[in-house]
């Protein structure tokens, strides 16, 4: 398939948007994508590197949303990782990090991006070798869910159920203090 813009190169980037149920597709080459990424509405919010990554990366590792694809911070300032030599420029271009230590080396770039990408900022899943990580984080999450549930029940005036949830919350709070 040829690029829809220059009609010369092979189209290697395929973008599909669904807006209010209407599908819009664009098949273009890398060069035109680079040129267009600043002004074309369908490309706005996409980071080219991320799109390329999405293609070569494979189907199963999607980017979370448009905001997440934007790596914040001043591109003029070059941060680098003393451990593996990776720098913030490479990170912007590839969307990937060089080693575990990069997470602290690029913390100021990463923290806001992580907030956009994920539902939370603290790991509450398993840890190596089994067992739950962050017992306190897990309890905190449970507490937040219960509080939300309580609010909804009170709004619906289901006071009996709300009382049960309130007791659970109190018990959980006590548990967290221990």
């Amino acid at each position, binding site marked *: 398939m040829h690029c829809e813009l220059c009609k010369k190169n092979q189209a290697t980037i395929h973008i599909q948007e669904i807006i209010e149920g209407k599908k819009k597709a664009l098949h273009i080459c890398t060069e035109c994508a680079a040129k267009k990424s600043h002004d074309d509405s369908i490309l706005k919010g996409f980071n080219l590197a991320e799109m390329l990554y999405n293609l070569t990366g494979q189907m199963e590792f999607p980017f979370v949303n448009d905001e997440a694809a934007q790596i914040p911070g001043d591109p003029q300032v070059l941060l680098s990782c003393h451990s593996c030599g990776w720098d913030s420029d490479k990170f912007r271009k590839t969307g990937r990090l060089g080693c575990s230590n990069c997470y602290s080396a690029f913390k100021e770039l990463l923290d806001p991006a992580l907030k956009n990408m994920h539902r939370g900022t*603290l790991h509450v899943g398993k840890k190596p070798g089994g067992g739950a990580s962050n017992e306190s984080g897990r309890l905190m999450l449970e507490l937040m869910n219960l509080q939300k549930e309580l609010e909804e029940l009170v709004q619906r005036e289901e006071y009996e159920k709300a009382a049960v949830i309130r007791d659970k919350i109190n018990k959980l709070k006590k548990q967290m203090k221990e």
Partner: protein
Amino acid sequence: MRNDKSGIDRLLSNRVSWLADSGPEDDIAISSRIRLARNIEKTPFPMAASVEILENTLSIIMHAVRKSASFPDVIEFELEKVSDLERRLLLERRLISRELLACKKGSGLSVSKDETFAVMINEEDHLRIQAMKPGFQLHEVWSDINGIDDALSREIPYAFDSEIGFLTSCPTNIGTGMRASVMLHLPGLALSGQINAVVHGVSKLGLAVRGIFGEGSDNLGNLFQVSNQSTLGESEEQIIDKLINVIRQIINHEKNARQTLLEKKQNFLLNHVGRAYGILKHAYTISSEETLNSLSALRLGVDMGMFSSVDIHVVNELFLTVQPAHLQKYAMRELESADREIYRAALVREKLRNIDSRN
């Protein structure tokens, strides 16, 4: 190391469990898959690692998989040493990613004979552990892969941070490092024009929906994969439970759509299925697109009881074996596009030879 021609032949001669076996709700949910991204501590991620490091990690990981005895009958591939065609076969079988098609030094694959478990080595992360089962059974897949992950972590020290979890090359995977997905066949929603609304709704919930057959080829075969996007801030079980809730709703929508078609547009439905069946059974040349869409219609017909003697798993396997690399393996030679269409039609006719239609 058993890493010769026989590796791929051993894979091909075994049934692919997630396509060929039965699973819960497999009329709509074809398979459930979970993959975990893991890295070895104090070692640069593959993208920043030297060839030496990559070769070292490859042998460490392959050894760990063997030693942990997590995989019954493990088959190993050093991707550098296998042919182009074989790499494409592995891609079509969902065992390696598109990224590993380009021959990359130090990358590999350890896979169980029935393809239920696999570890892709030195792709974006040092390890991408994958488990798959037929039908809709994410909890069971989680239980399996969780055990494998524990066993491997006893052999390999993982890169892990107590606050942000498993450390991955791409920050979209940190935390659990888990991507859970279910492959759904949704012809009812597609035929009744509701599929875009469903896709849109699901993406609003922070989940990803995509066609199975790559970019630009949306909706081919009406096969979709629904997966989680967020990997940090929730436990594995919470992520899976949410995904299951949404997928259950999609399955119900699909069932309703099929029922409505049957009640209100019966002739349209019968015609759609019958024509597809005729084409598959009698064509002598057929494109990939027409095959996948016709297979989707045939699968719908089978689910709705319109064919007495067809095994749904034969149709499932055809979705895989009509793809280009598999066809070339079947033909035992490289095929130009036009030749592929002839071989594809022949393969489909052969597989459908013994099917009777009830309508």
